[in-house]
């Protein structure tokens, strides 16, 4: 029988004087425990993310040797430089075109993977995600080698078709192309995986209903798939815009901003000016220019995430 002899659990004798505040202190204890558990996180973010962000605002107002306060002097200086506007233009074109292609390719490839029987999907997914797994610094080295002026494997192959050697990293426009291409190569798998997961969550019955209603494959995508995936598409695109916009590794390794600054973007130019040129305030000013653009994107993301939260 279950009535085994055991010490009866003792409940604290409650006299009439037991106050309700003891429950309140218990609650408070939970609050303080929770606070303590998030404290390292809060410290990390405030000290190493938020503070530096504001500190860079301060830094941008100093002169090169950081002795004097020059207010907006650095910004004025930048506005007058052609290179600066070149960097702004290039950053935007680079980010937007890369993201558009990444999203498009990711979407298309996701569809193909979704079409094949489930058993095979895993190994195709595995192969297609490899670019994202390899550290970008390493894979960009491979691309650098593939684009090498003297030994480019691509030029070797193109020579068979009679196409003359292409100065992949030597010519401004080709250099821009390579930078965007490598970025697409690296980032499309991310979109593919996201979209694939989202595709799987669209109920089959919607497609069946659309087919019965007479929709062809294009209409099914437009009227069923895309609306169901709207949120994921919005979020991944905005995420990627921010990350691509702030990208450093690929440009730095592939072209180092060249030739002649024609592939510099904010991150690499800030590095050139701030660290290599030992002008920290100027570098900070360059970096800061990313903020308004990132802020706008962040607002859009927040709005979308909230909207999704309300819909859910």
């Amino acid at each position, binding site marked *: 029988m*279950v009535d085994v002899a055991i010490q009866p659990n003792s409940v604290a004798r*409650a006299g009439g004087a*037991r106050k309700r505040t*003891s429950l309140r202190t218990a609650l408070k204890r939970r609050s303080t425990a929770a606070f303590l558990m998030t404290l390292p996180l809060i410290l990390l973010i405030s000290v190493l993310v938020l503070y530096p962000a504001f500190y860079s605002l301060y830094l941008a107002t100093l002169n090169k040797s950081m002795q004097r306060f020059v207010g907006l002097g650095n910004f004025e200086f930048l506005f007058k430089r052609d290179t600066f506007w070149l960097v702004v233009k290039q950053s935007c074109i680079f980010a937007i075109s890369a993201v558009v292609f990444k999203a498009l390719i990711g979407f298309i490839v996701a569809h193909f993977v979704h079409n094949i029987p489930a058993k095979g999907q895993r190994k195709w997914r595995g192969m297609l995600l490899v670019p994202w797994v390899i550290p970008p610094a390493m894979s960009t080295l491979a691309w650098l080698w593939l684009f090498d002026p003297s030994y480019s494997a691509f030029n070797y192959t193109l020579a068979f078709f009679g196409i003359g050697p292409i100065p992949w990293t030597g010519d401004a426009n080709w250099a821009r192309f390579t930078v965007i291409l490598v970025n697409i190569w690296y980032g499309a798998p991310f979109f593919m995986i996201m979209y694939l997961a989202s595709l799987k969550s669209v109920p089959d019955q919607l497609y069946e209903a659309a087919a019965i209603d007479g929709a062809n494959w294009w209409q099914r995508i437009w009227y069923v798939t895309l609306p169901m995936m709207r949120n994921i598409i919005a979020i991944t695109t905005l995420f990627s815009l921010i990350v691509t916009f702030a990208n450093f590794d690929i440009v730095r390794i592939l072209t180092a901003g060249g030739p002649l600054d024609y592939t510099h973007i904010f991150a690499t130019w800030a590095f050139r000016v701030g660290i290599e040129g030992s002008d920290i305030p100027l570098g900070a000013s360059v970096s800061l220019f990313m903020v308004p653009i990132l802020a706008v994107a962040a607002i859009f993301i927040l709005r979308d995430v909230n909207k999704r939260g309300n819909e859910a």
Partner: protein
Amino acid sequence: MADVTLRKVIKRYDEVEAVRGIDLDIADHEFVVLVGPSGCGKSTTLRMIAGLEDITGGDIMIGGDVVNDVPPKDRDIAMVFQNYALYPHMTVAENMSFGLRLKHYPKAEIKSRVTEAARMLDITDLIDRKPKQLSGGQRQRVAMGRAIVRNPKVFLFDEPLSNLDAKLRVQMRIEIKKVHQKVRTTTVYVTHDQVEAMTLADRVVVMNHGRIEQIGTPNDLYHNPATRFVAGFIGSPAMNFLPCRLEEAGGGLNIRLTDRLAFPLPPARAARYRNVPRDEKLLLGIRPEHITEAKQHKESGVETFDTVLDVTEPMGMETLIYFMLDGVEVCGRVNPNAGARDGGPLRLAVDLNNMHLLNEGTGVVL
């Protein structure tokens, strides 16, 4: 084992009062069921007994001790949840022994308790499986096993059978009753299903809008409901309510349903309603089981009338009939071979010995 007492217990969420002053005495070893529609406050009350919700006002006592500020783990209670709440990464044995392991009970003790509970619930061969390998009914048994091994003062059940299909529900009801017979722990059981309440409880507490409507044994509630709510809630199909008036007739009282339909009241009833004002708008409460086909010989207090049926529902052992009386749909239960047909006429008998008279405005049974 212990008794549980609730004194003027109130629960307020911001401005909403979910529980508005509950007084309840549960005796040791008793099986009490809190029943009522969604939102009536029964689950909230249970959770306050468990300590999962704070008490806004009043006192709750377990075994004579006020436990308002005592955390759940020190109240010596065990709870069975609607969704079983089994730990998915632990085996059945580990699930059942988790509480004991936390309190550092000796291993031998734990093993013997778990084996005993498993035997009682017939889950011994499942002891090494994980929850996801179990069916709904098996999971619910494990949840009960987890409660049993703790040997607590009170068992708390929060709608444990709601997630099971109808057939399984019937089986598990019997299991729960058997367990209670063996273990005899004080039990507080919450459900919205009045059939569960009637079959399991020693006493039933009917709740509505945060208040107790009536407390009583299942029989009490069935035969002597105190309010319209209880009268309509207990019993399935539900009691019929027909507008009516009392009128003098000869030496006794008649109850008039429509212009053409009036019945004399049996003497016991007439005596009881002696002081009710005549011509006041009242409700006649009569259960479907007391509206049957007219029998051969007349019994005292049973009156007959003719009607045309709307719909019949043959249930096998009886047929439910539905007909209209002055714009109100009425339900009755007749013998399957009484000749009830959709749209056909039938002579019915109403047993006024079991009638109830209600004041429409206050909902109180007279």
